[in-house]
């Protein structure tokens, strides 16, 4: 009965709010997806932080700082939204540390040159935007509202990345090569950010029925590729896929085979930076313990005074 009413509400495009009845499967799917999303924003600060002190100009440094601060903010919006499902922030962080919760696999790759800041903003944030624009219509109210807020802020991230790539592509031959190299390394992991192909994705059935997801992995991936090919052409860089070509009949770009073996290997902990990313997060959390303790003590003192 409850389940039927719930589905009717979803079918009528009504949002589900925290106090409404929902199936356990819906709640669990959301906790997994939203916490993974939140952890990705937070872990995603690390590869970019790597270049703050080495940014090539004061302008670039200020922009990168603002971007990294935004990512922290986006993580917090998402943790807040996730907490409305009845799980605490402490538990969410604990799940990350215990490796029970995942984050986007793309952040397990290192950022080797300044051009990687360009590639991440342009491709990684670009792919995230395609996903997040779609998720603005998700059926869970708090998630939808967080996505709307994040999308508003995110478009500067992609533009700053593309600007870096454009600048480098028209610079010296070495700079152009650096930009091309960053594109070569980040292209495939970026298009795999949308997750397994629909034929291999076991959970998307309910996620689509419950309208948690509004478009499938393959639809989102195609959308991103179609948008991005022209942008690469404009700045004279080449997408590292020999099979990439316009398909008149489909009205979309065809593209080559993705290396899912590598994808799963990185997801399962064997990427170049998995250990470093998690160790750093754990250390930062432990190093901050005395601050949290002091804040609690201060608050108690205020109460007794």
């Amino acid at each position: 009965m409850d389940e039927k009413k719930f589905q009717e509400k979803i079918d009528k495009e009504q949002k589900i709010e925290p106090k409404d009845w929902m199936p356990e499967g819906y709640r669990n799917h959301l906790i997994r997806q939203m916490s993974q999303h939140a952890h990705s924003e937070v872990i995603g600060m690390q590869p970019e932080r790597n270049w703050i002190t080495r940014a090539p100009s004061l302008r670039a440094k200020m922009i990168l700082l603002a971007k990294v601060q935004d990512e922290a903010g986006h993580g917090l919006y998402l943790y807040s939204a996730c907490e409305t499902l009845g799980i605490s922030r402490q538990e969410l962080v604990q799940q990350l540390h215990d490796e029970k919760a995942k984050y986007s696999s793309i952040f397990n790759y290192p950022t080797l040159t300044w051009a990687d800041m360009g590639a991440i903003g342009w491709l990684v944030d670009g792919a995230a935007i395609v996903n997040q624009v779609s998720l603005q219509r998700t059926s869970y109210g708090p998630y939808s509202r967080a996505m709307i807020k994040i999308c508003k802020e995110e478009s500067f991230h992609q533009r700053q990345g593309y600007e870096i790539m454009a600048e480098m592509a028209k610079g010296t031959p070495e700079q152009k090569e650096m930009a091309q190299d960053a594109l070569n390394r980040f292209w495939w992991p970026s298009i795999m950010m949308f997750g397994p192909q629909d034929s291999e994705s076991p959970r998307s059935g309910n996620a689509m029925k419950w309208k948690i997801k509004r478009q499938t992995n393959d639809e989102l991936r195609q959308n991103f590729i179609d948008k991005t090919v022209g942008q690469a052409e404009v700045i004279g860089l080449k997408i590292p896929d020999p099979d990439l070509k316009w398909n008149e009949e489909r009205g979309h770009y065809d593209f080559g085979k993705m290396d899912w073996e590598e994808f799963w290997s990185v997801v399962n902990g064997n990427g170049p930076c998995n250990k470093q990313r998690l160790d750093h997060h754990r250390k930062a959390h432990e190093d901050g313990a005395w601050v949290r303790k002091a804040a609690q003590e201060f608050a108690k003192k205020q109460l007794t005074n």
Partner: protein
Amino acid sequence: MTEKTTVWEVFIQSKNGLAHKHVGNVHATDKIMALENARELYTRRNEGSCIWVVKSSEIVSSESEDSEAFFDPSNDKMYRHPTFYTMPDGAKHI
């Protein structure tokens, strides 16, 4: 596991003269920290001229499941709306 921090709901007045609007929440151990965290999290792009923070536990909410019964008293009083009344043809400015 660390002690839980208090959750505060955040309301922002976007411009002088407008009402405060709910934007989300923050975690903080005291009210000054709540205000400062709200500023950092919700007003990075000139979104506000004033912020209120209220402990989430202090908010009393009606239940959405009971909303029909709860709001029922207002449903049958159409005469509270101006469209209920018939105006003579030709009457202006009313």
